[in-house]
C-alpha cells in the first residue's frame, strides 16, 4: 500500500515537472515572438565626387602655377602648357586665369609686347578676363591632357633679354547648374553664354 502511494506520488511529481517545463518553454517562445516584424534593406555604395587638376609644361607635370621664360627673340616661343583632371570622377567645367609679368616687376597690361597663343576654338575669353573651356570634360576622359596655350608671341624687340613670369591658374568645377549659379552669384564671375550652355 505504501509502495503504491509512493509510486503514485512519484508519477504525479514527474507529471507536474513535465507540465511546468512545457509551460515555461511555451511562455519563452511566446514572449520571444510577441510581435511579428520584418525588415528589407536596399543598399548602395561607392565613392563621393572628386575634382582634381594637374598642370603640365612641355609634357611635365608641375606643382608651380608660374611659367618662366626668358625672351631671346621676337618670334613665337614654343611653350606647351596643358592641364588634366586625373583622379576626378565627375563631369567638369574648366576655366583659366593667366597673368603675364616681367620678372623685373613690369606689369604687362596689353599685348603690345608679349601675348600667349591660346586657341579661340577651344577657349572663350570672358569679360572678366578669364578663359573658359568650351567643352564639358567627361568623367570618362579626365586623364586627357588639354592644351591651354602652346606658344608665346613676342611682339616687340624691347622685350628681348627680359624674363617673363606667366602665372596660370586652372580651376575645374562640377558640371551642373548649381556650379554655374555659384560662379555667377557667389564668386562674381562673368561667364560667356556658350560656357553656361554646357550644362
Amino acid at each position, binding site marked *: 500500500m*505504501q509502495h503504491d*502511494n*509512493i509510486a503514485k*506520488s512519484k508519477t504525479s*511529481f514527474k507529471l*507536474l*515537472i513535465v507540465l*511546468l*517545463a512545457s*509551460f*515555461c518553454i511555451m*511562455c*519563452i517562445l*511566446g*514572449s*520571444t*515572438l*510577441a*510581435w*511579428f*516584424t*520584418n*525588415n*528589407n*534593406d*536596399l*543598399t*548602395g*555604395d*561607392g*565613392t*563621393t*565626387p*572628386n*575634382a582634381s*587638376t594637374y598642370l603640365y609644361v612641355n609634357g611635365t607635370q608641375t606643382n608651380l602655377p608660374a611659367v618662366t621664360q626668358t625672351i631671346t627673340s621676337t618670334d613665337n616661343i614654343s611653350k606647351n602648357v596643358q592641364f588634366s583632371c586625373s*583622379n576626378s*570622377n*565627375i*563631369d567638369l567645367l574648366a576655366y583659366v586665369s593667366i597673368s603675364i609679368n616681367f620678372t623685373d616687376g613690369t606689369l604687362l597690361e596689353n599685348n603690345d609686347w608679349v601675348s600667349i597663343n591660346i586657341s579661340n576654338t577651344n577657349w572663350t575669353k570672358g569679360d572678366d578676363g578669364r578663359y573658359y573651356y568650351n567643352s564639358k570634360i567627361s*568623367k570618362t576622359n579626365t586623364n586627357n591632357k588639354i592644351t591651354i596655350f602652346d606658344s608665346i608671341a613676342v611682339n616687340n624687340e624691347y622685350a628681348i633679354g627680359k624674363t617673363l613670369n606667366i602665372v596660370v591658374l586652372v*580651376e*575645374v*568645377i*562640377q*558640371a*551642373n*547648374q*548649381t*556650379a554655374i549659379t*555659384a*560662379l555667377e552669384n557667389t*564668386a562674381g564671375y562673368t561667364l560667356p553664354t556658350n560656357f553656361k550652355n554646357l550644362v
Partner: protein
Amino acid sequence: MNSNIQIMPNRANKKWVMPLAVALVVLFIANIIFITVAFFSDTAKGSAVVTFGTISTDAYIMENSTKTTRINLDTNELIAGSVTQKQLHIDVTGTGDCYVRVTGEFRVAVDGTNYVAINNLVTFSIDTTTATGWKLLDGKYYYTSVLNGTDSGNASKLTLPIKFTVSENFGNSSLDGQSIYKNKPYRIVVSVESCQAEGTQLGSGNSFDHTKWVSN
C-alpha cells in the same frame, strides 16, 4: 503528501528533483509576470494578442525591367545641387495585416573606416504629395493605414518616389577644395520595416500614432 516528504530524503540519488521543481515554479511565475507586462504595457485594453500568420514584405527598385535591391547612384548624381529620384516598390508578401515604414540614410567614411550619416548634406525623402497616405514622423516615413497582401501592386500606396537631394554645401568643386567629403567611400541604406497591425493599435489617418510602433 506527508508520505512523500518522509520518503524523498531516503532517495539520495534524486536530490535534484526538488530544486528543479522549485526552479520551474519560480520560472513559471516569472514568465507569467513578464508576459503580462509585455502584452499589456502599451495597449489601451488589457488583452493579450496572439497573431497567426506571417508579417513579410519585399522591397525593390526596378532597373531595366529587373528587380534589384541595389541603389546605384552615378557620381554625377552626387554633386552639389543634384536631385536623384528612384521608384521604390513594396510588396506585402505575408498573410497578416501590417504597418510599414521607410527610412533612408547616406553615410560617409571620412576616415575610410567609420561610416557616419550626413543626412543634412545628402537628404533622403519621399514625395508625400505623390505618395498619398504616407507621412514623415520623427525622421521616418509611415504609411498611416493597415496594409495587407491585397495592396501589393497598388502603385498609389506602395510605389514610392524616393529622392536623394545633395546640398549645395556638400563641396565637390575646386572652389571648395577643402571639403572633407571629397573622394570618400559612402554607403546608402534604405530600410523598409513592417510590423503586425493586429494588437499594435497605431490607428489610421489622422489618428495614426507612430509612437506605438513595436519592434522585437
